[in-house]
């Protein structure tokens, strides 16, 4: 439903097109002369009428009246030129920046990006800004990557080594865990003493299901529902009882509290094995 204001504007448009009955037109004439507050609404209607014409939303007869009765003063012609100019300019600016993406979030991103570009307007400045933003984004990415995963990257290198010879690892603090229990695979409670851990801990995680030769695993160390450490592309090892994952994790994030290790095949991430332990 149209508001009173919209009805007024619509009426004023018809008035300016010369498309009202004489009595209606006369009533508006008198209103215009006596009511100063109408001026802004009339200017608005005038401007909208030009937009309507450019948008081709007027009927053919209105288009004709627009040319015959409306666009006749030099002031309106100048205004019409300016509106056309502004519209064309905005569309050219918009075309210079990508705009259609499928998902909602990136759309918002591009929307904001386009707004940013609209601040600069000149294509060269826009292009320069794009390059600066891109370099900045790449820098931030590497900075974040370095800071968030420096330790993870170091341990990833360690975990890619062959850990099949347990004799070589006997000096390293080792935790054996079975999926879903708070006890290690030897039956003792998995509560680790921080002072005994050294700088890294070897975790041996018994796999509850058989893994195929090509399977690799992703492991996440979780505390208070937050992932504090991640390792990927982990291989599994065979033992007399079946199969297990072997991986080093740093001791530094292991403070007092309860932890979970979540392991999943990288090809079937919906099947997650959870290993619980605590640091006392």
């Amino acid at each position, binding site marked *: 439903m149209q508001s009173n204001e919209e009805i007024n504007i619509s009426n004023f448009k018809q008035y300016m097109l010369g498309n009202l009955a004489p009595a209606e037109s006369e009533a508006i*004439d008198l209103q215009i002369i006596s009511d100063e507050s109408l001026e802004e609404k009339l200017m*608005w209607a005038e401007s909208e009428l030009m937009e309507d014409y450019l948008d081709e939303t007027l009927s053919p007869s209105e288009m004709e009246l627009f040319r015959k009765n409306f666009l006749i003063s030099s002031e309106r012609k100048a205004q019409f030129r300016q509106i*056309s100019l502004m519209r064309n300019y905005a569309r050219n*600016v918009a075309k210079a920046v990508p705009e259609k993406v499928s998902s909602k979030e990136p759309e918002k991103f591009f929307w904001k990006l386009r707004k940013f570009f609209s601040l600069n307007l000149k294509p060269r400045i826009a292009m320069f800004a794009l390059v600066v933003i891109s370099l900045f984004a790449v820098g931030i990415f590497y900075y974040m990557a370095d800071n968030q995963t420096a330790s993870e990257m170091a341990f990833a290198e360690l975990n890619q080594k062959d850990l099949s010879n347990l004799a070589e690892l006997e000096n390293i603090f080792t935790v054996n865990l079975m999926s879903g229990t708070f006890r290690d695979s030897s039956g003792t409670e998995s509560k680790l003493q921080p002072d005994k851990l050294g700088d890294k801990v070897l975790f041996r995680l018994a796999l509850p299901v058989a893994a195929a030769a090509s399977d690799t695993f992703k492991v996440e160390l979780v505390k208070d529902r937050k992932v504090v450490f991640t390792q990927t592309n982990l291989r599994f090892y065979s033992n007399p009882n079946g199969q297990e994952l072997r991986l080093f994790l740093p001791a530094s994030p292991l403070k007092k509290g309860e932890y979970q290790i979540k392991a999943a095949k990288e090809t079937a991430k919906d099947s997650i094995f959870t290993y619980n332990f605590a640091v006392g």
Partner: protein
Amino acid sequence: MKKDYALKQEDFDALLAWLSANREEAGVLYENIRKGLIRFFRFRGCNDSHTLADETINRVALKVSTFDSSKNVKTITYFYGFASNVFLEYSRTTGKREVSLESEDFQPWQNSKTPDDLSNAECDCLENCLSTLPPKERALIVDYYAKDKSEIFEQRSKLAEELNLKKPALHTKVFRIKNVLRNCIEACLAKNNL
């Protein structure tokens, strides 16, 4: 349009006396009526609405002694009657013309392919004027016009939603920014003698 007379001081005094016995009040009424007549001619699409308003006032002033006050006709109605005649004469003499689609007035830049097609001076003025707007307003005006006909509705709905405004409020906001731009562009073109 015939203008073969000059308004004398006594005619003007008679007009003010007719408007109000209080000279000061008459002066205020006169100013308001003059502004109203300027609006009338301007929104009727006339060039030089100030001159047409003054012409109307002159004619009323010349005839004011003949008005029959017993008829209780509103002051504004007299002015309107004269203004209508002035408008008709104006229309006849200037000859309202239908603007040809091929004429300069109807070469909307919407059809041009690149900014190079635009008038450089106007384009420069538009850029300069846009740069004087606060960044949010600048972005709004560009976004408001960014889409072609088929996408305008969706685009403006999205804009209104983003700005947490109802659509009429969005249109008002844009309209006001456009007015600022318009004044700025006109001043810029005048400065460059264009």
